[in-house]
């Protein structure tokens, strides 16, 4: 370690140690009073330190160091540059929110059969793993941290293991994580083979042939894509994220996927160096498909957490669209547009971390208050949990990419990047990118539809079940965590320019140039390339909206009739009683038109059974990825293993025959 340790690195170490400390502290829960508080306090401290470290790193030069651990000839290298700093900040913000949220939420688990210490310990390890991934500056530490992150989150997914579905989800998750990790490892292996070492510094200097560069890229893309949940490697995601306790879901969806994005950026933009535009095309196509499929499958879900998990697939798709565009532009020699793509992706990364965590925390609050995840049993929660409802609405607006909230800004930036495609010379690329943009537009519109469904069914209307009718507001801590994230969503939406100034350090350090034009016109104006090309002023928009609202309300309230009278809803002409909760449109009904329009993409299993006293409608919408990719592979391996098992039939003479045969074959081989 350097004698003069830079501040950012000190803060980062503090963050990691605090997370580990939280894990250790968790082990004492149930034995020592106050251990629970300490555990979340340390977790929060870790988050805060990570944010501080990230911000410091964004404002300063890269700082590196070594830890006396790891392999004898390869101590753990850490390095904190702007890119790492940005992701540290993303991790830290969500961890902070989760630490505030956690004490209230885990009350449910305190008297359960599974000890809280397990939950807390692995949460701490999980956070430490994520922080270390971001800090790692050699492949070995990276992989260790990466797998630590996977493994500890696996234990969190399987925490509530009495349901078979959770166990299955966890198994699938760990399996895919493992495949992905091995793929990444091989990717690093390629770089290390050419660069002569596992330190990232050596890899940067590697002179790869285009073929090997593409192999490395492919391996990394598969590996990181699997973790990030790109279609068709996403199958684990909608299973695993909902299975974990909600604040962990928030961490997984909000942050862990981002760590995968970080890995991809680090690997592709930083380590390989020689970018080829074909990679960008692959990333763009896969990203577009992920975005669209993610939102379509999300629309079909009525389990709230599962739905949110599918939305993560969608948003990761959007991030990768940005990255793909960035790769294409960088590789074809348009650095400004390339940087814009990267910035858009980073911005969306931050946004998704904020609003997806917010939404998962909201879902957790609902779960906590009603023990219900199924949208079809919710309704009217806004009046029972007004604050949660309010924050959740902000999350919904943000994720639906509506101005003036943050989701819109990043999608806008992505669109702006796509619109730079006129600069390209290749006709195919120029026509491909707009199509991707169209898919992005479709995705955004469908996402809005989906969140109308979610919010409308869950929070509006009337309660559909008794448990929901009895819902009570959650604790202050849980609410304030949501409020904190909601506020950040708003701030990131209305001050994009200031945020971009921070973000600019990332491409400046990574690619040697930033997006100077974007912030050139003051904090009020966001002009990604040039003001005459496109501009957006979020503060003015917000101001104008509020002003118009206020004015119209002001004018109208002065009208002749000020009072609003409460009445019964219109009962469609029925005379006996009010419309009941069962008459409301359900989530499934809401999505039915879209299911019919996009029917080909789903595996729909719909049955109507007539039985005594009425009819029963069964609907199951399955993911096509299963039958296309997963089931065949599993069957192949099963068949292969069945064939191989014939080696061992129990007859000792056959075994001896194998020995004899092996001996003869080997003798023949060497002669």
């Amino acid at each position, binding site marked *: 370690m350097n004698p003069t340790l830079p501040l950012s690195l000190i803060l980062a170490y503090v963050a990691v140690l605090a997370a580990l400390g939280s894990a250790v502290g968790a082990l004492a829960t149930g034995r020592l009073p106050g251990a629970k508080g300490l555990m979340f306090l340390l977790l929060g401290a870790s988050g805060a330190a990570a944010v501080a470290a990230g911000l410091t790193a964004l404002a300063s030069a890269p700082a590196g160091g070594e830890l006396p651990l790891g392999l004898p000839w390869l101590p753990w290298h850490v390095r904190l540059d702007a890119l790492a700093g940005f992701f540290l900040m993303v991790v830290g913000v969500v961890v902070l929110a989760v630490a505030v949220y956690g004490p209230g939420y885990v009350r449910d688990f305190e008297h359960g059969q599974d000890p809280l210490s397990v939950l807390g310990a692995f949460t701490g390890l999980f956070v430490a793993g994520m922080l270390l991934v971001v800090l790692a500056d050699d492949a070995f530490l990276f992989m260790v941290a990466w797998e630590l992150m996977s493994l500890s989150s696996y234990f969190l997914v399987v925490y509530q293991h009495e349901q078979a579905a959770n166990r299955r989800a966890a198994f699938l998750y760990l399996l895919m994580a493992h495949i992905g990790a091995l793929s990444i490892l091989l990717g690093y292996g390629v770089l290390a083979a050419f660069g002569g070492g596992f330190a990232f510094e050596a890899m940067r200097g590697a002179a790869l042939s285009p073929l090997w560069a593409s192999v490395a890229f492919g391996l990394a893309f598969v590996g990181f894509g699997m973790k990030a949940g790109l279609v068709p490697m996403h199958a684990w995601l909608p299973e695993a994220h909902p299975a974990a306790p909600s604040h962990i879901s928030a961490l997984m969806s909000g942050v862990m996927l981002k760590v995968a994005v970080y890995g991809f950026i680090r690997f592709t933009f930083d380590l390989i160096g020689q970018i080829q535009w074909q990679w960008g095309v692959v990333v763009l196509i896969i990203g577009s498909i992920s975005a669209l499929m993610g939102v379509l499958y999300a629309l079909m879900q009525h389990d709230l957490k599962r739905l949110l998990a599918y939305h993560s697939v969608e948003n990761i798709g959007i991030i990768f669209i940005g990255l793909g565009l960035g790769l294409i532009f960088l590789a074809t020699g348009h650095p400004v547009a390339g940087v814009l793509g990267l910035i858009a992706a980073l911005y969306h990364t931050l946004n998704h971390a904020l609003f997806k965590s917010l939404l998962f925390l909201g879902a957790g609050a609902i779960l906590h208050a009603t023990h219900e995840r199924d949208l079809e049993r919710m309704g009217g929660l806004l009046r029972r949990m007004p604050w949660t409802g309010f924050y959740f609405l902000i999350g919904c607006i943000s994720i639906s990419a509506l101005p003036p909230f943050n989701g819109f800004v990043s999608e806008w930036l992505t669109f702006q990047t796509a619109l730079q495609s006129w600069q390209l010379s290749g006709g195919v690329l120029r026509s491909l990118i707009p199509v991707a943009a169209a898919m992005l537009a479709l995705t955004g519109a469908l996402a809005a539809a989906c969140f109308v469904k979610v919010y409308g069914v869950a929070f509006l209307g009337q309660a559909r079940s008794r448990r929901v009718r009895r819902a009570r507001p959650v604790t202050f801590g849980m609410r304030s965590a949501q409020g904190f994230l909601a506020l950040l969503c708003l701030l990131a939406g209305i001050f994009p320019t200031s945020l971009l100034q921070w973000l600019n350090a990332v491409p400046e350090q990574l690619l040697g140039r930033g997006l100077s034009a974007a912030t050139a016109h003051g904090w009020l104006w966001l002009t990604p390339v040039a003001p005459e090309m496109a501009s957006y002023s979020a503060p003015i928009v917000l101001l104008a909206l509020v002003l118009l609202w206020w004015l119209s309300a002001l004018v109208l309230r002065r009208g002749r009739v000020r009072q609003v009278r409460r009445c019964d809803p219109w009962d469609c002409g029925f005379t006996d009683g009010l419309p009941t909760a069962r008459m409301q449109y359900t989530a499934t009904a809401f999505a039915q038109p879209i299911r019919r329009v996009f029917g080909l993409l789903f595996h729909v299993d719909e049955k109507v059974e007539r039985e005594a006293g009425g009819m029963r409608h069964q609907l199951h919408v399955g993911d096509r990825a299963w039958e296309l990719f997963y089931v065949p592979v599993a069957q192949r391996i099963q068949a292969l293993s*069945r064939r191989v098992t014939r080696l*061992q*039939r129990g*007859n000792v*003479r056959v075994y001896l025959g194998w020995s*004899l045969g092996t001996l003869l074959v080997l*003798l023949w081989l060497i002669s």
Partner: protein
Amino acid sequence: MNLVQLSLLEQAVFVLAALILFLSFTLLAQSRLVSGIHVFAWQGAVLAGATALVAASGAHHLFISAGLTLLLKALLIPWMLHRQVRKLELERHVETLPHAALVLMGGAALVIFSYWVVVPIERLELLATRNIISLSLAVVLLGLLIMVTRRQAVTQVIGFMSMENGLFLAAVAATHGMPLVVELGVAFDVLVAAVLFGVFFLHISESIDSLDTDRLNRLAVPEDEP
């Protein structure tokens, strides 16, 4: 290499080695259990003879080894086997070899193969003993073949022991014996093994009521989905 260039003693060793090989073939074709034990005893005796001849030709420490072999391979182990067979009432046991002609042909092929394997050894001072190695290799392989073709546990043990005979032949004829510590250790191991085999015959016949090893198949990986 020519046989004529060798001394008479060495020629005698060669003859005995060939005899051992022949006895292996006899074992392979033998269908009566008791006769098999006898043949095995003879093989041990011939091996002991060969060892003695080598010892006479200069490596005197091999006399001990020859004595050990005679005692163990020609007398003690056959006697133990015989006793076991009587105890288990298997004296009249006959196990016909299916496709006997084919198996014998296979055995012959193994002999040719063993010769072919050692052909690359062409350094001059090794040539004299090269062929005896190929013979002992053939005996080892034939022993293994006996074990593969026979279902009877006792026959399998006989095959195993005849494999060891091949080993000894190689050790004695090609290298003029291993160091004494090793020889003793090996002999001790063989003895313990023989005793253990006896114990196992009892256990096996207790558990499956016969010594047919094909019926020892409880421990197989299931074919159907577990």
